[in-house]
């Protein structure tokens, strides 16, 4: 490290201590701190950020000698570091995990999961045990959702069609002055709407029959309107006095619905000589809802349920526990569940009800809701390193790669010792990656890494961006997920994420992008090899360009920050002490004006540190507007999308930025670190970061880096397979 001491110590010595770095001190520090200083020095010199422009420039020879020396030291010494695997705090299932587990275990979905409190994110992910809170509100939501799932799994259907009858007089007034009742019939004497809620246990065809009669007056017949969930189903003329059924048959989805019946043409003619023709009223006797008319077909995931029908409660409890508790079944808990079922039947409940309570209890248990990694049986000293027990390791794999609970095959693999070796873990991970369930990595990992999940909450100004709706949001998100999947599934180099010469569009997105050709509602791949460069790779995707914009305009600062944080894992440095002020861009109408404002902003020394790089990245993307459309100046001229990094390197538009990022080893390191944090459930330590960087750097030297390679590095890491013992 002589080169470093010679060249850098002038400013970075004990007295000047520039940038908080004292080289001599850093190089004598413990190995982790020393190597992390060397890594930082290498990166800054490599990016031409050091030495600064006001210092003596380095000759090319000095520069390469320094970089070589740093690389050699890191390559030699980092592998000797032994990062502690640490101990991961018990993790609550995220909303996504809960959803996926329920889907995989039972083949059903609960709308109630929508009501779960938002998951607390740590380091941008919902899989961080320390960050995830629990409160009574969570418990209530989990309990209600568990009951909902149980009702969909243990159903009382005996082959006959379920029928629900709602008496007219029991319906509530939705609109209008009121209604009377006469021998159990609702009398609508003026224009009014009455309604009632009902549950559809599953989707299917339903027959809704309104039993209604009417009195007549005036020329028109009495008219009734029937609506479901606020949508009109039919207008029906009711001409007879005695109630008669009017039926409507239609498909209805699972969940809560609301039926409404309205009287819409009130008429009163007090002077009519015939007293029976003076008042037009509607009488609603009852509403009968039959359905689903199709017999129930249990999803394949529920095949085991049929067998529980003839089991003892104890055996039923064991069957439930085996699935819901991810392989950990203890006798005490089985007894407890069986007892609940017993109590339920003693209180007059049916067998299905008893099974339902058991399942609800299992799904509310901490053994389901938390990912508990049981203590080892061996008596180890506090802090000693031990392997993660096989079942817990299997769960780590399934939540990482499938966002879900483990299945029977994985359970068997854990039980027969397959996960005992590093090799075994890797092989299993590769097989799991080949499973369709691994597609979820695109929405669950990439969706969080690239902040695609935030698209839902972005609300561009409709006056400026008419037509930006949920369908477009969905299409944008899907495009990015599909690029990710293409890279993952086709064994491409992960840097193709930055410059793939293809993308995926449906008709909507093709229209939005102005891509010509025939497209449908389904996504298809389009080659960009010969066309415009605008949509190549992630940087040209409208999804994240929209996520990082303000409602009325682009934000080069936010885009630059997104690039730094997510693609390079370089958080903007904090402002110098005493300068907590950090402004945002000012209000300006044009990109050129914005550019001028930001230039002024950077001229303030306290802002420059953060903003020089961020802004430079953001400006390179100024040819995309706030929802990611390619844009031009007022006279159709191209928008200035060039910028200069603090190092003096020029970035010219999206093409320049793409090349810059693709060649920057920080991109691969960032992706690996993010994947590590997502998988392990905590931040990487300084030492772990060095080790991860070294392994990805090595991998990159050997050729293309595939997503599977990154998965391999993560699952083989000590942090994934080992842990510190606690007593």
């Amino acid at each position: 490290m002589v080169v470093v001491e010679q060249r850098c110590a002038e400013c970075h010595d004990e007295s000047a201590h520039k940038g908080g770095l004292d080289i001599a001190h850093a190089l004598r520090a413990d190995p982790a701190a020393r190597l992390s200083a060397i890594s930082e020095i290498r990166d800054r010199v490599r990016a031409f950020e050091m030495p600064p422009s006001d210092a003596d420039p380095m000759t090319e020879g000095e520069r390469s000698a320094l970089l070589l020396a740093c690389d050699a030291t890191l390559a030699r010494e980092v592998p000797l570091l032994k990062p502690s695997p640490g101990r991961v705090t018990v993790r609550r299932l995220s909303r996504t995990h809960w959803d996926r587990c329920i889907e995989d275990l039972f083949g059903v979905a609960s709308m109630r999961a929508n009501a779960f409190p938002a998951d607390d994110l740590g380091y941008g992910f919902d899989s961080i045990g320390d960050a995830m809170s629990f409160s009574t509100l969570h418990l209530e939501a989990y309990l209600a959702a568990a009951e909902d799932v149980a009702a969909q799994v243990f159903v009382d259907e005996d082959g006959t069609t379920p029928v629900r009858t709602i008496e007219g007089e029991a319906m509530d007034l939705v609109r209008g002055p009121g209604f009377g009742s006469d021998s159990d019939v609702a009398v609508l004497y003026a224009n009014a709407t009455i309604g009632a809620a009902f549950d559809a246990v599953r989707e299917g065809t339903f027959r809704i029959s309104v039993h209604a009669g009417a009195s007549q007056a005036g020329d028109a017949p009495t008219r009734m309107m029937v609506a479901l969930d606020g949508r009109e189903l039919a207008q029906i003329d009711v001409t007879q006095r005695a109630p008669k059924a009017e039926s409507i048959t239609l498909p209805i989805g699972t969940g809560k619905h609301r039926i409404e019946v309205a009287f819409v043409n009130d008429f009163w003619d007090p002077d009519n000589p015939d007293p029976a023709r003076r008042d037009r009223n509607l009488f609603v006797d009852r509403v009968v809802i039959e359905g689903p008319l199709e017999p129930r077909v249990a999803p394949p995931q529920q095949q085991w349920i049929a067998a529980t029908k003839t089991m003892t409660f104890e055996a039923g409890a064991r069957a439930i526990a085996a699935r819901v508790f991810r392989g950990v079944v203890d006798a005490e808990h089985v007894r407890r569940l069986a007892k609940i079922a017993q109590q339920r039947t003693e209180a007059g409940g049916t067998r299905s009800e008893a099974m339902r309570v058991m399942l609800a209890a299992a799904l509310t248990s901490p053994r389901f809701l938390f990912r508990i990694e049981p203590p080892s049986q061996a008596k180890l000293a506090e802090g000693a390193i031990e392997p993660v027990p096989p079942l817990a390791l299997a769960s780590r794999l399934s939540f990482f790669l499938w966002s879900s609970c483990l299945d029977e095959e994985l359970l068997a693999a854990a039980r027969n010792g397959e996960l005992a070796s590093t090799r075994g873990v890797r092989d299993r991970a590769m097989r799991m990656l080949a499973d369709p369930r691994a597609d979820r990595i695109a929405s669950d990992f990439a969706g969080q890494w690239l902040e695609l999940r935030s698209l839902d909450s972005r609300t561009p100004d409709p006056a400026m961006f008419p037509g930006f709706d949920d369908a477009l949001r969905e299409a944008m998100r899907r495009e990015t997920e599909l690029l990710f999947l293409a890279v993952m599934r086709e064994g491409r180099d992960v840097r193709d994420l930055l410059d793939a010469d293809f993308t995926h569009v449906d008709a909507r997105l093709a229209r939005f992008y102005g891509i010509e050709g025939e497209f449908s509602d389904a996504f298809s791949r389009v080659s960009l090899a010969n066309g415009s460069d605008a949509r190549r790779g992630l940087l040209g995707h409208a999804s994240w360009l929209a996520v990082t914009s303000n409602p009325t305009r682009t934000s080069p600062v936010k885009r630059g920050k997104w690039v730094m944080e997510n693609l390079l894992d370089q958080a903007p440095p904090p402002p110098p002490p005493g300068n907590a002020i950090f402004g945002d861009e000012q209000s300006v109408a044009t990109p050129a004006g914005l550019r001028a404002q930001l230039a002024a902003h950077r001229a303030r020394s306290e802002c420059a540190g953060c903003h020089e790089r961020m802004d430079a990245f953001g400006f390179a993307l100024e040819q995309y507007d706030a929802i990611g459309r390619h844009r031009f100046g007022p006279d159709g001229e191209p928008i200035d999308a060039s910028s200069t990094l603090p190092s003096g390197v020029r970035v010219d538009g999206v093409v320049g930025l793409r090349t810059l990022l693709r060649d920057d080893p920080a991109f691969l390191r960032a992706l690996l670190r993010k994947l590590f944090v997502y998988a392990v459930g905590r931040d990487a330590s300084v030492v772990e970061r060095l080790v991860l960087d070294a392994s990805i750097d090595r991998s990159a030297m050997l050729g293309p880096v595939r997503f599977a390679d990154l998965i391999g590095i993560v699952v083989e890491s000590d942090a994934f397979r080992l842990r510190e013992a606690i007593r």
Partner: protein
Amino acid sequence: MKSTFQNRCLDRRTVLRGIGACVSLPFLDAMERAVASRGVAAPRRTLFVFAPNGKKMDEWRPKSEGALKQLPFLLEPLAPVRDHIAVISGLALDGGRAHGDGPGDHARAAASFLTCAHPRKTGGADLEVGVSVDQLLASEIGASTRFPSLELGMERGAAAGICDSGYSCAYSNNVSWRSKDTPVAKETEPRAVFARMFGDPEAALDQRARAALLASRRSVLDASLAEAKSLARQLGGRDRAKLAVYLDSVRELERRIEREQQSQQDAPPAPKNVFAERGDFAARLDAMYELIALAFETDQTRVATFMLGNAGSNRSYRFLSVPEGHHDLSHHGNDPHKLAGIRAINRFHVERFAAFLQRLQSTKSGSGTLLDATAVVYASGISDGDRHNHDDLPVLAVGVGRGGRHLVCDKETPMANLFVSVLRRAGSQQERFGDSTGALDLG
């Protein structure tokens, strides 16, 4: 050197105690008893409202100290309840400042808002700030109602990303902290809030079905409790702490269900705004205020917090003809267009708050109105959104002391001092909170 006597806003009791004269205490308590004996004492309710992104201070702060004569533009909607309002200037949240931690003022503004503590900067591991004043109060008086406290907000958490400059979203999205490392999740669906308190307005369970549901829930929770206890014995350290929170939740929910099994309270009709569409922000805001009023009126809880937005909220207020994002606008740089947007948003928030206070005023409670029985602190953890400063905060106090005036405290008077006064009024015995140096004298 300044003596405590010169510190305006310091409560007389604190001053007296400061010089060793505790004699005043019994006298004051006797006074309080006398007040109470004039009629049936209504239970005291307390609400904390968090407004994101600061305020347009030049149109918020009254021109003169003392009696509230002319209300500044942003406070004009409060005219009908002026006598109940104390506008307090000069309070500071020191915990919101950087103290060497760099950017992240929005996250810190929310995290320190009710804790009056400085959050540890972390993206996830080792969250730490402090117990919030509402949770402290709930731990003392919460057992007497079905819900020890309610936590409500208008925005769910972020779906992705780091919320603010290296701070975990837990800091930006919560103001209630049950312990120094555990935030309390908030409910953001008006309809779900109603259902939680009074039952699902659309489920229409009959007596038998309701009884069966409650009984089944009891047995589910019993099993969960037993399960968590046996697990906790096997786990150590942080794992056990996580499980302890689960255990507490199970116990709280069991207590609530037990109470429900005994009572036959009729549910009030669901307010119509409860069913407002997701996009109708104004209606949903009114619905939340109405639900807080209902919760207080029916004594479901006596402590609530309400976040009008998460810290740094960038919501656009299109219905006010303000399409830009709130946070974006708050960095106004004195641009007239942006200032106009901020002004409209600030004014709207105060209008809805004023309507809520009038709703409380029109409801009887004990021998007075619900407003008389309620203390509200409405404030922002940032003063000017463009400067991100955490001193001279915009603060309204309702029912904490004498209203109808503008109180100007010495610079750097901790917000915690106001909370000490709030705690005392609500019957707490706490003498200190967070970084408090005493209690505010609110007369």
